[in-house]
């Protein structure tokens, strides 16, 4: 039996409509949207971000421009753009040192104000809830609006020479005493230093590297920022112990020019087999196993930063967040949301990890990739991340960082004692917080 199949005009129209719908359906993040521009810094993890963006462009056909700058230059470009009547950049890649400045200044539009249906993937690290901002309380707490998506969950980690440790039958140090003992053991200057630390002044240099020591000793800069208590506690006995330890380590088991060491030189010391330990932001991991750059391929291992017995590891957050500028057209804001919606998926974060970046999605750390030798830093990082400390919750952080950079550098250079440095820095930080009318005070001087 043969039947006849007749198509009338109504069927034809319905069929064309269905075909059009089926071919144009794409996931929300894959909708064709306006081109966007992202302002970003040139960091060790930038290459992984660039490759992730390329993947987004390949999958969606959307276009993304990257404006790449040095650390301080990126901040200046962001300030100039968001303070103009019309912004040049749609997405701002903000560092832990300045994201609150952008939130509090009203320079970043809450993501859920652009798209109320947007939901942060529950497996994405919120990194001390720094992706939220409560404008009324002027602080970063989970009861605020969603302002950004984490881009790189950077914290410092202890890099140590696994081969030397294996030869000596040692385990990764968990306490500062163990780290000091092991650093002294491997200290054979000038061939190899026990540890190389960063001590140079910079936009956020020596202070950032000092945080794990400070918080790992039970110290801190303020009493309790979340509750609005900005009493300066930097010059506590714990702070003193931390700074004296940092200096002792530098002088007795470290590099003679610690006070002038910047990040590139510290990394260089590790990859040139010139040191047994460094405490460095995890973003530098890929350089350790790069045969074109490293003389210690496959010899470096990672561990959470040490702490005092009984205290948890306490690396300071030096992470990067992506926020959407307030002064760009609505279509570009929506396009930026689509990029962020895609970027936070596990699949996108796997691309980031494979490209040498640090994923912000917890599920990636449970994937088979985390078992591979090349990604041996993942498990220690996943162990340390929950203990990461958000150092600053207020927009004037850059003023406090400048005080710390100078004071710590002077102490490490031997210009002033640790006690004088801590007392002096505490006075200056207190003056800054008082000037900006925070609830502040000081503890008894050392």
């Amino acid at each position: 039996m043969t039947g006849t199949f007749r198509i009338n005009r109504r069927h034809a129209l319905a069929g064309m409509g269905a075909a059009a719908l089926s071919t144009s359906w794409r996931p929300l993040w894959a909708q064709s949207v306006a081109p966007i521009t992202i302002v970003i810094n040139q960091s060790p993890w930038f290459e992984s971000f660039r490759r992730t963006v390329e993947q987004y462009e390949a999958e969606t056909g959307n276009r993304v421009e990257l404006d790449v700058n040095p650390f301080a230059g990126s901040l200046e470009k962001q300030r100039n753009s968001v303070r103009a009547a019309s912004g040049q950049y749609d997405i701002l890649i903000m560092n832990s040192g300045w994201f609150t400045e952008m939130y509090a200044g009203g320079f970043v539009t809450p993501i859920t104000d652009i798209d109320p249906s947007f939901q942060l993937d529950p497996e994405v690290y919120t990194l001390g809830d720094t992706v939220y901002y409560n404008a009324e309380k002027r602080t970063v707490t989970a009861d605020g609006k969603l302002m950004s998506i984490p881009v790189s969950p950077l914290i410092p980690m202890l890099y140590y020479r696994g081969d030397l440790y294996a030869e000596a039958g040692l385990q990764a140090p968990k306490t500062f005493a163990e780290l000091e003992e092991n650093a002294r053991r491997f200290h054979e200057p000038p061939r190899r230093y026990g540890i190389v630390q960063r001590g140079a002044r910079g936009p956020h240099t020596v202070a950032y590297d000092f945080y794990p020591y400070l918080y790992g000793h039970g110290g801190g800069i303020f009493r309790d920022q979340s509750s609005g208590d900005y009493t300066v506690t930097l010059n506590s006995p714990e702070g003193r112990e931390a700074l004296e330890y940092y200096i002792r380590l530098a002088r007795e088991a470290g590099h003679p020019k610690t006070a002038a060491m910047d990040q590139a030189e510290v990394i260089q010391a590790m990859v040139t087999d010139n040191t047994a330990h460094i405490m460095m932001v995890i973003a530098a991991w890929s350089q350790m196993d790069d045969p074109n750059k490293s003389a210690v391929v496959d010899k470096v291992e990672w561990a959470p930063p040490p702490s005092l017995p009984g205290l948890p590891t306490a690396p300071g957050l030096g992470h990067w967040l992506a926020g959407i500028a307030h002064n760009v057209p609505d279509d570009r804001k929506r396009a930026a949301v689509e990029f962020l919606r895609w970027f936070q998926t596990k699949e996108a974060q796997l691309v980031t990890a494979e490209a040498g970046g640090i994923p912000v999605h917890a599920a990636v750390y449970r994937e088979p990739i985390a078992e591979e030798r090349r990604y041996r830093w993942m498990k220690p990082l996943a162990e340390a991340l929950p203990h990461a400390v958000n150092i600053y919750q207020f927009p004037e952080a850059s003023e406090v960082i400048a005080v710390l950079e100078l004071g710590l550098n002077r102490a490490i250079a031997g210009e002033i004692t640790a006690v004088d440095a801590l007392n002096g820095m505490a006075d200056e930080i207190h003056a800054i917080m008082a000037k900006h009318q925070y609830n502040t005070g000081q503890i008894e001087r050392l």
Partner: protein
Amino acid sequence: MSTASVVTQTAEQAASQRSVTPLGDDRLWRWLTFSPALALMLVLSVLPLANLFVSSFQDITWSGGASTRSFVGLSHYAALGSDALFHAGIRNTFIFAFCAVAGQMILGLGLAVLCSRVTRGRVIYRAVFILPILIPGIVIGAIWKLLLNYDFGLINQGLALLSIAPHDWLGSSETALLSVIVVDIWHWTPFCFLLFLAGLESLPQDIFEAAKVDGASSWQEFRLITLPLMVPTIVVTFAFRLVLAFKVFDEVYLLTSGGPGTATEVVSFTLYQRFFTEDRIGYGSAISVAVIFIVSLLLVMAISARRRLGSTS
């Protein structure tokens, strides 16, 4: 009619034609034609300075994406008195400027005198001497950062050959500023050399010939003829270099970032720190005004010194 009266008449006619312009008298016309240039100068130089000056009496805060300016009187200027970083910056800038410029003047003059006496291969010497001034600042930073590197710098490697222990040139408080001064001398001596060479070549040769006839030695010739005649050039070069040295930033930024501690903190770096890094626009403006004042003062002193020395010589 005599030729003289014709000339006078023609001049009067021309004068009357000039004053009879469509816009009235000659003075108005001149002002009108001059005013675009004046307006441009006001917009490009005076207004920014005026804005800077006004900002130095204000605090600028941001909220809701908009700025709020609040008048704070002289408080920013008062704060300069207790800003340890600013004090260190001013002190180091003076040390840096005077030491670096003195070195450049001595070396530049010496090289210029030597070069002016060379007859063969003069062009080659000049090209070699002016090479550092042609190199971009960022490259100079890279060159000297490598030379002065503690671990693998050429200078420490040279010392090692002489069995001398390596030294941390840029990381030690004792030698960091000296190292930056040496780099600046290396960079800017060619500038002084060029100006001095031009000055030497414009000196009247008959005086030198007369001195030779009178049996003057080379040293006497230099001390009693060259140096006095070169005083105006020396003073102008000194003033130029002093003002430029006072504004030093790139060498410090690239080599030491003001450290260790405040050993190489210069006032431009303090300004960068306060204005840009810390985003304290009002206070940064006050530092800027103070720096402009100091540089202007130096310039006035140099000009008056030139007048005094010029009239003496």
